């Protein structure tokens, strides 16, 4: 058994979700007695960054340090990853189920004729020689344990489903020259617009503070933002709040927005409609703050405060600041 991990990065900054994928793959290699974990990096990055992947479990890095890969095209990337899989004899390819992973993994599955579990949330268990991996289905209302029994298999790991594990390991790095040329890049990047400022992007965030119509208007959002800033959390919102432009669309979570599974989801003035829950119900811990003790969200919550958000939020923000000062 040999494992290949595709490492996603932005301008040489390795994404945390890829370190999660690498840590996960290292654990899978350990569980299955695999010979090693090869990390694949495509495009420009610093030498030290690439060599540093050893600390997360890579035994070897293949690096195509070729500026062609500084543009993204799922077809060209798939071709390169498939060549790396062939070269390393990989039986398992792991990548993150992030935006790039969602574009690449299905193509790779076809190219390698390898079954794919898209959005895995657990480590695999062994069933004979097959891997059984859990994923979330029915918008968080159930899990499916899926069987991977191909000669090569692909797992795309949900962001935040496995913690980054950093050790003291090191790895060798070798140059990789896939037979990919400019003609394989059929997509042109016209522009890139940054959205979330300095906060961790919502799909990757471990801590999320989210608010709904209970906040009554955008002018009150400073209360939500203050709490988020104190916690180091990312902000989110319910759909009606994005629909009336109190908050930007990329913050909308739920069935028609994005799905997240942070460690902590704090929902303020959100009723907890089923379509909202569909996007957040796999969060590890859910806190609900609502003035209506009958709000359905309390049924899906671990902790709740029944009360007026306008009074509670400043108190919570103060408490977080005190907590941070004590634990600094």
């Amino acid at each position, binding site marked *: 058994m040999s494992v290949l991990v595709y490492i996603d990065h932005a301008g040489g900054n390795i994404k945390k979700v890829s370190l999660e994928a690498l840590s996960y793959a290292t654990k899978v290699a350990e569980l299955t007695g695999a010979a090693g974990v090869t990390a694949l990096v495509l495009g420009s990055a610093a030498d030290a960054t690439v060599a540093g992947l050893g600390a997360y479990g890579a035994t070897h890095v293949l690096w195509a340090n070729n500026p062609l890969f500084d543009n993204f095209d799922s077809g060209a990337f798939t071709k390169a990853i498939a060549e790396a899989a062939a070269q390393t004899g990989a039986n398992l390819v792991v990548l993150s189920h992030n*935006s790039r992973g969602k574009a690449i*993994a*299905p193509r790779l599955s*076809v190219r390698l004729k390898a079954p794919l579990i898209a959005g895995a949330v657990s480590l695999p268990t062994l069933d004979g020689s097959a891997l059984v991996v859990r994923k979330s289905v029915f918008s968080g209302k159930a899990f499916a344990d899926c069987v991977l029994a191909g000669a090569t298999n692909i797992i795309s790991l949900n962001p935040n489903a496995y913690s980054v594990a950093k050790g003291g390991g090191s790895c060798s790095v070798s140059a990789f020259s896939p037979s990919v040329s400019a003609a394989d890049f059929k997509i042109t990047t016209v522009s890139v617009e940054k959205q979330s400022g300095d906060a961790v992007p919502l799909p990757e965030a471990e801590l999320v503070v989210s608010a709904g119509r209970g906040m009554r208007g955008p002018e009150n959002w400073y209360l939500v933002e203050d709490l988020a800033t104190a916690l180091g959390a990312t902000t989110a919102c319910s759909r009606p709040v994005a629909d009336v432009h109190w908050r930007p669309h990329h913050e909308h979570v739920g069935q028609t927005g994005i799905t997240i599974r942070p460690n902590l989801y704090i929902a303020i003035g959100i009723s907890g409609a089923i379509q909202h829950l569909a996007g957040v119900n796999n969060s590890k811990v859910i806190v609900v703050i609502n003035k209506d003790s009958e709000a359905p969200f309390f049924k899906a919550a671990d902790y*709740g405060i029944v*009360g007026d958000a306008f009074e509670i939020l400043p108190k919570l923000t103060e408490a977080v600041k005190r*907590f941070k000062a004590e634990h600094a």
Partner: protein
Amino acid sequence: MKILVCVCQTPDTAAKIDFVDNNTQFNANGVTFIMNPTDEWYALVRAIELKKQHGGTVTTITVGGAENEQTIRKGLAIGADDAVRIDTNAADSYGVAAQIAEYARSQNYDLILTGKETIDYNGSSVGGMIAELLDLPYLSGASHLDMPDANTAIAKCEIEGGIETLSAATPLVISSQKGMAEQVIPNMQGIMLSRRKPLTVVAPAAINDLASVKVFEKPAPRSSVKLIDPDNAADLIRLLHEEAKVI
């Protein structure tokens, strides 16, 4: 311009999810089905808008049994010109994609649209698989799509922390999400017209599935909520640290 839109049906969001046969099969008994939201509101509606702009045809394609026909008629009522149903129940995203690619291969579509993901199996895979099978460019999760002319697609795709504006020449495959179009409710005329629009049933190609589900399981219900006195809101922070260990 020839546009193909992949549409499927999924249990209504509010449906109760249950399994039978030792939790190996979804229990469709008594479940209301709807058109998968991203297929309907975004992919199909945008396809019809682009047809109005550039002329051509919008065809929907569905892999599944006759029980899908109500959903398919709804697509025709919204404004698709015709529909294709490939008469098989595919076991996974690959099975769906391979059937659609086999059909589309000889049809020279300029644009193939899918939804971002199905709200039942949450695969987010069919679009990318079709693209690879047909060797076409693929844009994943587009929230805007403009076609300044019939040969060029300019799309906005969300990446973590930003939005990329991307352009590619047709033919290509795009998966669609929120932002691409607004919901359209079929009117009486659309519903009347849809009854006479062609729905072609096609025999499936021989295709093996790749992955399979062994068993389903429902998440353990959250233990009942622990309520914190609003006058001692700071207690929450202590509990999140000491008990839940998330901060």
